[in-house]
């Protein structure tokens, strides 16, 4: 990381034609980054994959550098004896729903913060951070009491509400930043040219908002997939999510190979999803550049 920081200013050296800049330098930086990525990702994930394949009969103890024998027994065991298939379905139904609803709830407030000035705005912005400062289990316990008392007994709906409130701060903050990036002159120009409201949104707002929308969806999705306290307290016993299972394997039922299996099941689809979203993000960018250029 240090080397990268040291090199960063070099990329900014003035060159006659900016568009050509840095292809050689980028290659060097890419090289450095690949080494870092190895430490950053390949070593830990390599370890996780190895752990998930450890044979239950032989184990993996020092001084064995690698597991003495490999088997898929752990994968079979986790799939057949835990509620993992159910948990996968629940988690992947819950998280996208939470991400979309949170975005919808956050957008008006974010718009207001970015485009209006009003007395007490600073205080209101601080107030949106409240869900972040209440510790997880405290929040979960009282949330469940509250939800029971409101007469909501659907597990899915209860966790959905709780997650939406819990992750609203992320969406509001990110969307506020996104709305701040919308340029007023573009909105004015579109209006002066007689564009319909929808056309105005499409031309002036969407390009600048797209990265923020995606960032918000990604962040909330991840948080919801990972969240344990509320999903467990409110969801038990018939609504299991992936982290509930993971926590059991890294807690009292500590079994590293099984934990590695659940970790990979939880993490790998997310990373793939991330790659897809990056592509979406990229396709949003040229539009933005085009508008600004």
């Amino acid at each position: 990381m240090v080397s990268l920081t040291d090199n960063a200013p070099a990329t900014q050296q003035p060159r006659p034609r900016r568009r050509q800049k840095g292809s050689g330098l980028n290659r060097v930086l890419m090289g450095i980054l690949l080494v870092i990525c190895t430490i950053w990702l390949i070593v830990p994930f390599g370890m996780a994959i190895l752990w998930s394949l450890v044979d239950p009969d032989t184990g993996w103890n020092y001084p064995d550098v690698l597991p003495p024998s490999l088997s898929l027994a752990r994968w079979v065991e986790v799939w057949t004896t835990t509620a993992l298939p159910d948990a996968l379905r629940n988690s992947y139904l819950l998280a996208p729903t939470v991400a979309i609803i949170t975005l919808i709830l956050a957008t008006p407030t974010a718009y207001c913060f970015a485009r209006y000035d009003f007395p007490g705005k600073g205080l209101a912005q601080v107030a949106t951070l409240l869900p972040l400062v209440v510790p997880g289990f405290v929040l979960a316990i009282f949330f469940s009491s509250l939800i029971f008392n409101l007469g909501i007994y659907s597990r899915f709906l209860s966790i959905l509400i709780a997650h939406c409130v819990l992750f609203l701060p992320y969406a509001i903050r990110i969307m506020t930043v996104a709305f701040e990036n919308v340029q007023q002159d573009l909105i004015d120009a579109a209006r002066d040219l007689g564009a319909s409201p929808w056309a105005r949104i499409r031309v002036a707002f969407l390009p600048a908002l797209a990265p923020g929308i995606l960032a918000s969806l990604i962040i909330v999705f991840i948080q919801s997939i990972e969240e344990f306290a509320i999903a467990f307290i409110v969801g038990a016993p018939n609504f299991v999510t992936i982290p509930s299972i993971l926590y059991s394997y890294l807690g009292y039922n500590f079994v590293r190979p099984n934990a590695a299996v659940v970790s990979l099941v939880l993490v790998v689809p997310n990373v793939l999803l991330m790659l897809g979203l990056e592509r979406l993000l990229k396709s949003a960018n040229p539009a933005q550049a085009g508008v600004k250029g």
Partner: protein
Amino acid sequence: MFRTLIASAAVAALATGASAGGHSDLLSKSWDDIVAQAKAEGEVSWFVWYFQPQYRELAAAFTEEYGIEVTIPEGTHDGNIEKFLAEASRDAGDIDVLAMGLDRIDLFDPAEMTVGPLTEVLPNGSKMVTELGGYDGLGYAFAYWGNQTGIAYDPEVLAFEDAPQTVEDFKAFFSEEPGKFGFNYENGGSGPSFIQNIARNVTELSESEFLDGAVSEDKMAMLQPAWDWFLDDADGYVITASNTDSLVRLSNREFAAVAAWEDHLFNLQNQGEVDKRIAFYIPEFGMNGGGNYNVVPANAPNPAAALVFMNWVSSAETQTKFNEVFGAAPMHPDADDSNALVPNEMRAYQTIWPGNPFNTEIRQAFIENVALER
């Protein structure tokens, strides 16, 4: 709106055990009627915080016998208990049978919040254990699991003949082999058991004073020799992160011996997590033994099925099975206990946990006086 919400949250948090009396009908029925009702209910949920996958497999025998489906959710020990407390005001909760460490029985009033007394109701009731390790379940809570703390060691590094047995032995071990002994002070009770038994042996407190659970400033001050004992050899031992951390690092040859639970070691060895070479003993200066209880919450959604399940879990057959699979000490006099890691005569060194709140205060005092001072 806001006021209403706060009020309702308050009511939910405050109200406890609304309907304890509601099950007197059920308890007055004959066992055959209870079983019939249980079969009609058709399902039961058991909230237990460890070994859920293995329990799910074992519960298949129960489903086969009674045709009642068993749900064993994921969850933590205190998380389960908090859920039980938080939803006590609902007419029907989610929990049919709740498992807990025996000291947790002091957290609430069983007569108000759970179904019972059951000694006369359950067929196994008269033989099941309702008082264990100094904690009285009063016929509402029954033990289904017995366990023992002690020392796990690596026989390739430390021969049993050289293994420390007394407080003085440990002192000598710390100075001869610094950094080769590990124990935790949180995330599990094995380290706290070690700490408490050192304190029991090096302080002037009498046995009854030590166990009665009362707390006073004088009593806490009398623990000072124990804290000095630990501080004098601060480099002699390593504080680990949890029960499991201790055992895994022992297995990986970082330590020669650690404080551990017998049943926990047994299970980790079966899972291949800890090497089979690791052995276990109860030192002569004594370490704590205890177990876990089951209770049926007053608002259990399937109360009859819960009683049938509780009776089944504590039966001689199931307890024999638990000993085979988990190495747990059976909680039924007719069960077979031949799979334990230690010979029976060693059980004479078993001590019991001090009562609360003293039990908790010792742990906290260890943090204040030793852990933070290192």
